[in-house]
């Protein structure tokens, strides 16, 4: 690659990329190769398609190693884009199906046997942050440029004032997608106003909330969108250097970022005198080392400095005194991924999406007891029910859902009767939860809310950095009370104690981790208090009771799986579980292929 020395040279390069596509449009087969795709066997599928294409010698078809389209439940997924036609999605693709697909496309306009996903999955979604995920090769800068990438950066460097860029981002109403929801444009404005140099821009890619994987998806599927946005931000606030702080648990994301940075440098989109504008900007990746608290911005800054990732009191805010005491702006991956579309389509376009208080879209990661596990990007103000039921397809066992946990260990559980709440930062806050990074863990009827609270408290105790007493000691005490209740030694007065202590921790802890860590306990106490009371009354969580329903065909599979031989019944006759012998292990339910075992 030759360095593009001027804006004109970039425009010519971008035109050439687009012209190549216009003169010889290609049918593209996108193989979803993010972490879950690869773990589900996308590698051999890609190899099979590539080998078949090489053998057929068809130059009009190209196979692309793409990121994730978000239909994680159907991995490995393959999407086919025939020029001038809508994209067709295939799910559960095997290498054999991959080879067959190449042969089909040689004679037919569209592949057979598409995945039937139901319209809602796509119709309810609006992809801004995820616009390129699954539709480009993340390791080819040309693919990103073909979709309009780096055009905005070139335009800005061609004479837009930093203040104009900030005004556009501010007018768009974009708020931080990492969870706290601070207005991005305002953050940039504060940093711009800071007098001291040097300044830094940091991308927070320490996606630590268990159950949230949208940032991983953006980094693995569209890394250049983050690089372009950081460069734009650097220009706007006056920073010449940036850091991407990424979790060590995301090796593929790190690799794709490294490739993207090398390509950008080679084209002259990072480095000295970018496109001849005189503006210089470069960045590097900093690896985390497995500490949840490092998602908190002051802790993250200390970790980049090479120290223990302990938070410090704000103010001073990082915009004033951050990395090495200099002005530092920390933006989340998803926030940055929205910048290029805002600049391309205008602040008014973005502002019109979502709700008056929360513009734009939010990506949610659906996981847990839900049929269609995956990523969904929806306009703010979409109701929880629409996301869980219309996109998520409801529970796996077909029964009504019980609750959804939002915001990870800092968030809370929202009960099913509140599912018609439109999703906004404030509405989730009013329910005792938070937006957080957008992880939605769906819970079916069998999930014990006391156990969930206990699980999160264990997490928070383990991840507390130990610096402040309310978090270090308070969370430990909350955890011990929950242990006691689960062990059947709880007392009725434990419940007000949990509430009092939880509220004290919220009010007095030093950083965002401690101030939100009691939320899982407080929210489950608020909405599912009777489960705590039952637990105290019954001496622990009642084990599930398994019974056989009329779907039983009498196949004896469950009886063979039962470790204590408590299932009786002749072949082809409905079986019965002897409750006096049952040890509540659930082996029968796991084994049954007919949904004939109920559990209460």
């Amino acid at each position: 690659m030759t360095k593009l020395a001027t804006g004109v040279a970039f425009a010519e390069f971008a035109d050439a990329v687009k012209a190549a596509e216009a003169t010889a449009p290609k049918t593209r087969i996108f193989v979803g190769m993010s972490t879950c795709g690869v773990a589900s066997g996308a590698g051999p599928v890609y190899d099979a398609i590539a080998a078949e294409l090489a053998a057929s010698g068809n130059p009009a078809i190209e196979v692309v190693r793409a990121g994730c389209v978000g239909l994680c439940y159907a991995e490995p997924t393959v999407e086919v884009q025939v020029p001038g036609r809508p994209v067709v999605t295939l799910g559960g693709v095997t290498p054999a199906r991959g080879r067959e697909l190449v042969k089909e496309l040689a004679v037919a306009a569209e592949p057979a046997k598409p995945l039937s996903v139901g319209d809602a999955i796509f119709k309810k979604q609006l992809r801004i942050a995820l616009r390129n995920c699954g539709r480009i090769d993340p390791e080819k800068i040309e693919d990103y440029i073909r979709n309009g990438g780096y055009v905005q950066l070139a335009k800005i460097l061609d004479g837009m004032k930093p203040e104009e860029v900030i005004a556009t981002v501010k007018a768009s109403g974009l708020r931080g997608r990492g969870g706290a929801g601070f207005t991005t444009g305002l953050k940039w404005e504060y940093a711009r106003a800071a007098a001291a140099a040097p300044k830094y821009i940091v991308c927070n890619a320490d996606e630590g909330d268990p159950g949230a994987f949208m940032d991983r998806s953006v980094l693995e599927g569209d890394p250049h969108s983050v690089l372009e946005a950081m460069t734009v931000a650097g220009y706007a606030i006056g920073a010449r250097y940036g850091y991407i702080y990424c979790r060590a648990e995301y090796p593929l994301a790190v690799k794709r970022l490294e490739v993207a940075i090398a390509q950008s440098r080679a084209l002259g989109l990072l480095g000295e005198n970018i496109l001849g504008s005189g503006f210089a900007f470069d960045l590097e990746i900093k690896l985390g080392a497995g500490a949840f608290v490092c998602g908190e911005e002051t802790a993250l800054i200390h970790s980049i400095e090479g120290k223990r990732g302990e938070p410090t009191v704000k103010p001073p805010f990082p915009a004033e005194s951050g990395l090495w005491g200099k002005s530092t702006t920390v933006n989340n991956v998803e926030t940055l991924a929205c910048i290029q579309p805002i600049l391309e389509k205008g602040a008014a376009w973005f502002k019109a999406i979502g709700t008056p208080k929360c513009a734009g879209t939010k990506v949610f990661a659906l996981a847990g007891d839900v049929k269609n596990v995956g990523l969904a990007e929806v306009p703010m103000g979409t109701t929880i029910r629409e996301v869980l039921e219309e996109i998520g397809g409801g529970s796996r066992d077909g029964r009504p859902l019980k609750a959804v946990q939002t915001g990870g260990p800092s968030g809370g559980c929202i009960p099913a009767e509140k599912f018609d709440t439109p999703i906004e930062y404030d509405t989730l806050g009013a329910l005792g939860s938070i937006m957080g990074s957008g992880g939605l863990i769906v819970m079916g009827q069998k999930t014990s809310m006391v156990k969930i609270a206990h699980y999160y408290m264990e997490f928070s105790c383990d991840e507390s950095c130990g610096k402040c007493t309310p978090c270090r000691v308070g969370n430990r005490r909350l955890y011990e009370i929950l242990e006691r209740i689960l062990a059947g030694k709880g007392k009725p007065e434990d419940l007000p104690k949990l509430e009092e202590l939880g509220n004290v921790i919220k009010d007095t802890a030093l950083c965002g981790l401690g101030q939100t860590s009691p939320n899982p306990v407080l929210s489950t106490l608020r909405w599912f208090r009777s489960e705590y009371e039952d637990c105290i009354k019954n001496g622990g969580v009642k084990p599930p009771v398994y019974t056989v329903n009329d779907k039983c065909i009498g196949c004896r599979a469950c009886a063979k799986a039962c470790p204590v031989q408590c299932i009786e019944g002749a072949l082809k006759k409905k079986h019965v579980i002897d409750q006096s012998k049952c040890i509540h292990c659930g082996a029968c339910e796991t084994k049954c292929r007919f949904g004939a075992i109920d559990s209460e």
Partner: protein
Amino acid sequence: MGGAGGAIETMELTRMQTEETSDQAKIRELDAFIQSLGLDGRDAAGRRAVLIQILHRAQGLFGWLPEEVQKHISAKLDLHVSEVYGVVSFYHFFKTKPSGRHVIDFCTGTACFVRGIGKVIEQVEAQTGTKLGETSGDGRFTLGSLRCVGACSLAPVLQVDGKTYGRVTPEQVEAILAEYK
């Protein structure tokens, strides 16, 4: 009689020498890496900024961070060894004990919790006779945990030597373990 004992001693000595040289080679590789970072003329803050990066590299080479290696890094960066140890002990990723031949990491994220990783862990613990966080007596397996690998659609998830296994049931545990001798 003396001859046989001598042979064993010689073998032992050769083994020790090989180990020593392989450790020295690793140290040399680590030093070359530190050299490549261009630390000359940097102040303490500048040298500290690469500490975590160097620890990642050292753990990649040694599999864990022995005390001697931590001391070596502290000398190279001219940072107090307590500071190096403070960082090592703060982050879950850094290991201060050697691992077994194979490392099994369970994802303990929420999706895996809801989808039943607990029963999988119990099964692996029973079959290896090892508790979470420990190494089996024969040095074959070390059991550890990870906070969400972000592959929630595959929950429950475990990784063996970095290879991801998804939708794992307690019944599959025996077959997975058999892949690793």
